[in-house]
């Protein structure tokens, strides 16, 4: 197991009270639940950042999946949930139309 380090942070009392209530309902101690929130938030932020890099054309979909340690399927689903376009844009359309045209002409001959 990796070595754990301690961090300290300040939280609004009302929020802390609600976290304690939720922790008790989930049979977790307060720090375990806060740790879970931080890890979930971290994974979500990493996934979002990598999906944005796919949108910008900096990463491929598989690279984003690998970096986020999730399957390709999860990247596709998360991008849709986040309403981020990760598919090709119109910049390659002329090439694709030329490929289609070539195939149509071939099927006619």
């Amino acid at each position, binding site marked *: 197991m990796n070595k754990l380090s301690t961090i300290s942070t300040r939280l609004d009392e009302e929020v802390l009270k609600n976290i304690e209530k939720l922790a008790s309902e989930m049979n977790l101690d307060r720090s375990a639940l806060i740790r879970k929130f931080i890890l979930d938030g971290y994974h979500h932020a990493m996934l979002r950042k990598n999906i944005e890099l*796919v949108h910008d*054309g*900096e*990463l*491929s*979909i*598989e*690279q984003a*999946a*690998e970096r986020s340690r*999730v*399957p*390709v*399927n*999860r*990247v*596709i*689903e998360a*991008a*849709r949930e986040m*309403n*981020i*376009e*990760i*598919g*090709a*844009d*119109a*910049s*390659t*359309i002329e*090439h*694709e*139309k030329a*490929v*289609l*045209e*070539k*195939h*149509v002409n071939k*099927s006619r001959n």
Partner: protein
Amino acid sequence: MKLKFDACSLILSQKLHLLPLLHDTFGTLYITSAVNDEVIKQGNKPESAEKIKEFIDQGLIENIIPRGILLSSLGKGEGETLAETKTQKENGEDAVCVTEDKKAKKEAIRLNLDVLGLDSLLVEAVLLEKMTEDEFDDEILALDKIHKLDITRISELRRFIRIVTNKKRDE
């Protein structure tokens, strides 16, 4: 024409139940071993992985070991898909890679390979009269629900169908 799918385009085709239509239109569909690993072994949804595995077992999809190694800045599956397309093209085959990924598409174009997206592949199905224009619109809507599409791209493809079908009618 030999179509080689990367993981994303294969997963989306399966989710939209398009694989039988694509097989009927284009013949055997090809994937490389890294794409197979991604969709079957590495945590794709079990029911989806099972369905794709069924298609492989039935011979609709053929899993191939890539013959070339492409050192590229892509993921392993995308890189293998492009490498295999390149090898087949060099061997004089009519090879097309199918990817939804903009980085992979640009890399394919840079390598002078033929590349199509799932949406443009459906355009070809319409032009080959394997799908009606209404069915195309339905599939594009369904695709957009699970994989946000670029509206300019879709209207360009729609316009292309109109031009080709009008031209065909005039002949």
